[in-house]
């Protein structure tokens, strides 16, 4: 993992001092609320329906046990003893006191964490693949580049007041777990035919009220040119992005308005001035960052023997077998696996985690995974470096702590925004919808039989729950002061990115479990052998689902 040097510490320390001063000026009435607003947002602080909300960056999802324990302590000392994993791999506190936030930031800085630019019209936390560095099919570990981008974007003097927020995602794998096609910039680290590392650059994707799949702007950008090219994209956007209407201010609207060819031409023209300048990455810097993400001290393990041992235990232990079948991911090193700790047992808001659980995750990370964990955009936690021989004790401990629900990737592993219970932007509640669905589909055998289903819920069209790219997407809408829910089908956040299609008129809250049941029945009745939900949908289209949902 990246480790701060004195420069990083100094920059973050000065940032906190600056924000402490701003908070004091605001509380004393010197700084106007409308001026404090973007300043606090750029330090992660929202003012929500019930209380302030602090969003803490987890850079590209990497977090270590020291940081987890500090977060646990912060939730105890400054909040109500729990935190929330967001759909962009960050961690939110729901109840901090505004006046305490500078102290919280100082506590975070001690463990090399910050909330800088976790919100606001600026470059946000860069997200990545939760299996970065361990995925079997990964070509190149994206994390060194994510860290290079983190540093470049942190307090960038030119791009702190963009037309709108700006999100970058990076993956080094063909199986896209970072949803790079629905980000302002999506980067796929690749190798060209000469074996040189570079990036495929996708621009102008995004969800929100106008969902768009990103456009290819450059097939191969050499790695040394990463920052100058990002500067060029951001400068074109900063100068030309719309500022008259916040709903048309994202870069996706600019790319659409200009056409991707024209947009790419402007970026290339700007980049021609910046390329090969001082901001060009040096091999020394790339190597320095790569050195923070070297392989841990793996043991040499006979994978077949280790797997046979696990299989033998699983043969006599059906609960363990189920957990293995859903909550495990492959690992590039023989004898190792990546384990998903499920944060969505029924009755808990998806992604919520208590202070005690944070401490336990830290302990498990220390014991089983070289002291590191990752947050995922589907609001779970990954321990990425677990020996297969230790899966059984890990499962037992995870189970005792409440995060061994064997539902990863299934219908009940719902992605869900905080919704109307917490968020002041929301049109409708989302957590109770997730819970109603989890309660309705509590027969795990049925859920397993359904296979992989991404069910995503957003409480408003800002789409924090990524409903457009759920196989089943649910969007809360407000109709004359009452909460209704629109259903979309066929979205996909993977490398086969697709935006869901609206089924039809919205439903009332209590109807949703039945409507979902009907949709699932259509799938079960129509699926071919081995077909997943989204594959059946792609084959038969929306009509049969629609017919069932609106049948009189």
């Amino acid at each position, binding site marked *: 993992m990246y480790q701060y040097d004195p420069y990083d510490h100094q920059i973050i320390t000065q940032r906190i001092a600056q924000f402490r001063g701003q908070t004091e000026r605001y509380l004393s009435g010197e700084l106007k609320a409308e001026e404090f607003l973007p300043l606090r947002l750029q330090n992660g602080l929202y003012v929500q329906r019930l209380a302030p909300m602090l969003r803490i960056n987890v850079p590209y999802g990497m977090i270590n046990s020291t940081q987890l324990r500090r977060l646990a302590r912060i939730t105890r000392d400054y909040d109500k003893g729990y935190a929330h994993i967001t759909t962009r791999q960050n961690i939110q506190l729901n109840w901090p006191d505004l006046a305490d936030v500078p102290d919280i930031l100082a506590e975070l800085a001690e463990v090399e964490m910050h909330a800088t630019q976790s919100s606001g019209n600026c470059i946000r936390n860069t997200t990545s693949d939760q299996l970065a560095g361990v995925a079997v099919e990964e070509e190149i570990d994206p994390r060194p580049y994510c860290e290079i981008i983190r540093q470049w974007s942190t*307090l960038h003097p030119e791009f702190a*007041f963009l037309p709108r927020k700006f999100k970058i995602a990076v993956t080094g794998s063909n199986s896209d777990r970072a949803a790079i096609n629905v980000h302002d910039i999506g980067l796929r680290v690749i190798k060209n035919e000469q074996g040189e590392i570079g990036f495929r650059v996708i621009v102008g994707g995004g969800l929100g009220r106008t969902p768009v799949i990103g456009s290819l702007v450059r097939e191969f950008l050499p790695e040394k040119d990463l*920052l100058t090219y990002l500067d060029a994209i951001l400068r074109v956007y900063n100068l030309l992005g719309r500022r008259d209407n916040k709903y048309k201010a994202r870069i996706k609207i600019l790319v659409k308005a200009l056409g991707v060819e024209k947009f790419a031409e402007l970026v290339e023209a700007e980049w021609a001035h910046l390329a090969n300048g001082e901001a060009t990455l*040096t091999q020394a810097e790339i190597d320095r960052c790569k050195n923070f993400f070297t392989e841990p001290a793996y043991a040499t393990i006979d994978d077949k023997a280790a797997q046979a041992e696990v299989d033998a235990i699983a043969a006599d232990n059906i609960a363990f077998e189920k957990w293995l079948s859903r909550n495990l991911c492959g690992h590039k090193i023989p004898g190792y696996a990546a384990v998903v700790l499920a944060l969505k047992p029924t009755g808990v808001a998806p992604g919520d985690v208590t202070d005690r659980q944070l401490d336990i995750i830290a302990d498990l990370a220390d014991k089983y995974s070289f002291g590191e964990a990752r947050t995922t955009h589907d609001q779970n936690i990954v321990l990425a470096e677990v020996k297969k021989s230790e899966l059984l004790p890990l499962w037992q401990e995870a189970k005792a702590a409440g995060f061994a629900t064997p539902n990863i990737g299934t219908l009940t592993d719902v992605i869900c925004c905080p919704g109307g219970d917490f968020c002041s932007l929301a049109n409708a509640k989302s957590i109770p919808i997730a819970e109603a669905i989890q309660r309705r589909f509590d027969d795990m055998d049925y859920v397993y039989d359904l296979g992989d289903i991404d069910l995503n819920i957003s409480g408003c069209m800002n789409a924090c729950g990524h409903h457009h790219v759920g196989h089943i997407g649910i969007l809360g809408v407000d109709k004359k002061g009452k909460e209704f829910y629109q259903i979309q089908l066929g979205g996909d956040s993977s490398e086969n990115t697709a935006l869901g299609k609206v089924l039809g008129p919205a439903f009332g809250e209590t109807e949703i479990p039945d409507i979902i049941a009907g949709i699932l029945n259509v799938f079960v009745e129509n699926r071919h052998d081995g077909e997943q939900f989204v594959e059946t949908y792609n084959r038969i289209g929306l009509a049969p689902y629609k017919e069932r949902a609106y049948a009189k």
Partner: protein
Amino acid sequence: MPNNTVVIKDGKITDNLWKIVNEDHSDLTQDNIILPYCLWLANQDELSQRVSEGKIGLLLEGDHNLQEQNEGIADFELIAINFPGFMDGRGFSVARLLRERYGFTGELRASGGVIRDQLCYLQRCGFSSFDLDADINIEAAVESLNDFSEGYQISVDLPTPLFRRRA
């Protein structure tokens, strides 16, 4: 347009010697006036001598297309960039372009709706003076120029990125 009696210049509070005039201003014989770009363009021939004497300043908006309209721009003693509101960040890019691409070395002034908390960023983008809204406490604001002593990126005041300077 603020046109305050004092401004921050080169890190110090100092008397404002310049005055922004609007587009229908007719008396162009005055010295130390800052003209909107279109006014200068319309009177270029008559003003060019006084521009080279450092008596005329230029006012640019955030949407000014420097690529097409940059002729003679480096000759001005002062260029002011207008910020219609502090959330409008176009001026940050315009400033860098003036400094890094169009050779402007004179006084670069942020004028209008910027707030104290942006001064450090503005300075890094090449601004050397600030004519802030009148209700801002300028004595306190000047301290914000020093909010940060280090930055990761290249900037006008520090053209080498941190990664090339790291020990």
